[in-house]
């Protein structure tokens, strides 16, 4: 049994938040990870900031730009994970990073270090199934779950992607980049049903989920929801409180409160 599965609290009504390493500071990333776990997170998606984040909308792009500005790197992001564990984060942590930083770091080095640093998974949004074989082999060899994505237009590839998925399967709610959407894809339920038919791991849905209603609806169809841009915005909203030592705890409390509102339907 993988560490991912061992650390996973539950496999239904999962909540998978995304934070950007180093946004607004590395220390706050650790605190935020803990706060999210306290708020009910089942898996933490930990982003590595990238100069050219093709799959992301403006909110996550800007978070990445801020984090790069702060000197965040893939190496430093990995080193945050043991700190998070020390702080008490016991849920699975999945590193989110684009393909080019992975290549420069070295695939094997990366998964090895992830393992050593108590991470559980890796998500690379721009490595589709067809380009993933080498990375998957390295990940499997080191017990790191390579998280796969599947999209509404994946069609005949849905089966192939779902069957080889590990950790959880990330379903893209609708075409486009990450970020809030006013309306959800109306065909989402049939898409998710199709995915679930072929998947042996929990199925989570992400991209554009930002309201209490949307979380509730998605929990009806899927095993979990991934929330990214909305979390970034909540953190942005509390940034000035978080950055001052005397108001930090207050700020974290308010983050927790807002996340509860999102989840308590």
């Amino acid at each position, binding site marked *: 049994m993988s560490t991912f599965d061992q650390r996973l609290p539950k496999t239904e009504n999962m909540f998978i938040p995304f934070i950007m390493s180093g946004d607004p500071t590395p220390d706050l990333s650790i605190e935020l990870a803990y706060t999210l776990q306290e708020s009910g997170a089942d898996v933490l998606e930990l982003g590595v900031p990238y100069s*050219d984040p093709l*799959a992301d909308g403006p909110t996550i792009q800007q978070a990445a730009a801020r984090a790069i500005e702060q000197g965040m790197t893939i190496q430093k992001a990995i080193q945050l994970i043991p700190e998070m564990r020390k702080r008490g984060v016991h849920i699975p942590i999945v590193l989110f990073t684009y393909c*080019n930083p992975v290549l420069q770091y070295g695939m094997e080095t990366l998964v090895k270090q992830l393992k050593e640093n108590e991470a559980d998974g890796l998500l690379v949004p*721009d490595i589709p199934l067809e380009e993933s074989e080498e990375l998957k082999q390295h990940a499997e060899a080191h017990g790191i779950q390579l998280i796969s994505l599947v999209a509404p237009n994946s069609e005949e590839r849905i089966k192939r*992607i779902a069957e080889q998925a590990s950790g959880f399967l990330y379903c893209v709610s609708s075409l*486009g*980049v990450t970020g809030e959407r006013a309306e959800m894809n109306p065909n989402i339920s049939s898409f998710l049903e199709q995915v679930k038919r072929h998947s042996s791991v929990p199925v989570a849905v992400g991209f554009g989920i930002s309201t209490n209603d949307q979380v509730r609806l998605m929990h009806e169809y899927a095993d979990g929801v991934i929330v990214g841009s909305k979390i970034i915005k909540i953190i942005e909203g509390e940034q000035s409180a978080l950055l001052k030592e005397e108001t930090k705890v207050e700020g974290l409390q308010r983050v927790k409160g807002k996340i509860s509102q999102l989840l308590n339907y």
Partner: protein
Amino acid sequence: GRFGDFGGKFVPETLMAPLQEIEASLTEALQDEDFIAAFQHELKTYGGRPTAFTYANQLTESLGGAQIYLKREDLNHTGAHKLNNAIGQALLAKRMGKTKIIAETGAGQHGVASATVAAKLGLECKVFMGEKDIERQELNVFRMKLLGAEVIPVSSGSKTLKDATNEAIRHWVAHCDDEYYLIGSVVGPHPYPKMVRDFQRVIGDETKTQYEDVKGGLPDRIFACVGGGSNAIGMFYPFLGTGVELVGIEAAGRGIQSPEHAATLTKGTPGIIHGSMTYLLQDEFGQITEPYSISAGLDYPGIGPEHAYLHASKQVRYESITDDEALEAIKTLSRTEGIIPAIESAHAVAQAIKEAETMEPSESIVINVSGRGDKDMSTIMKYFEGSAEHGE
């Protein structure tokens, strides 16, 4: 979808379907005689092909070395080879039933070419352009609008070409059902690099015929500049394996020892950019760095994956030329031949001049003059006036 170790489709899952759709349609189209005929018809009756093949007698005589021929892509409608590809892809988009095209642009040349073919074929057109480039290229922005295109300012990242490309891809992901993304060079995920090469190879095919008609046989060397690399691939591809020495020229900017250059193959390392495995300029953690060249068309941190392959397999030799050398070559070609090349193309001219001098008068070379310099006149003017002030 690979050229040796390079190429591929490193894209978000949502783009896999539209890329497969394009690949399937392209394969079908390239086997359809009507499509090929329509493409050739537009190249001829609209774009002005075949472009001229000029013997540069004065330049040849002044150097006293190899005989120099010029392939005149500067004579294409809209002023550069870019149109060949834009026509091809827009015809494909129409065949696929798309009603809108989107495109990225840096200096505006591909944006203008895209807006042009969109107008000609009755398609809607959106052009993504970095805010910094919009400011620098006011006239090209107006030109695109005059052609009926919508220009969408991009404020992310460095606000230049790389970011305009990112933004075009992001937009496309959300709108791929009715929009076609018309990439301007042999970059991006498969099948783009192959497709753009197939639409640009007309340059090399014509050159082969024209050289045969004028001189017989094959030239000794061929020179073409490389940014993304579409004019170079278009020129080189039909000559691969023929024994002709092929030379691609990158932009060395202020010098490849300085941090300010765009010499991707010379100084870059393998990685992924815009969905493709190739060489690129990046830092140790894989963050893409800003390239520099006085030429807006060579100012790209990546390079087409087929060039990476041709470099690795030593089928093409890649050299680099500085801003100063390129500008000097503009002056030389203007004064000897009455042709003001684009700054991009001047990189090829500069390297060709260096090498022609050392060659025998019995040998001959071809330079691909990929575009005209009109678009660059104010840059060139500022450069020479700047030089003059410093007593050069």
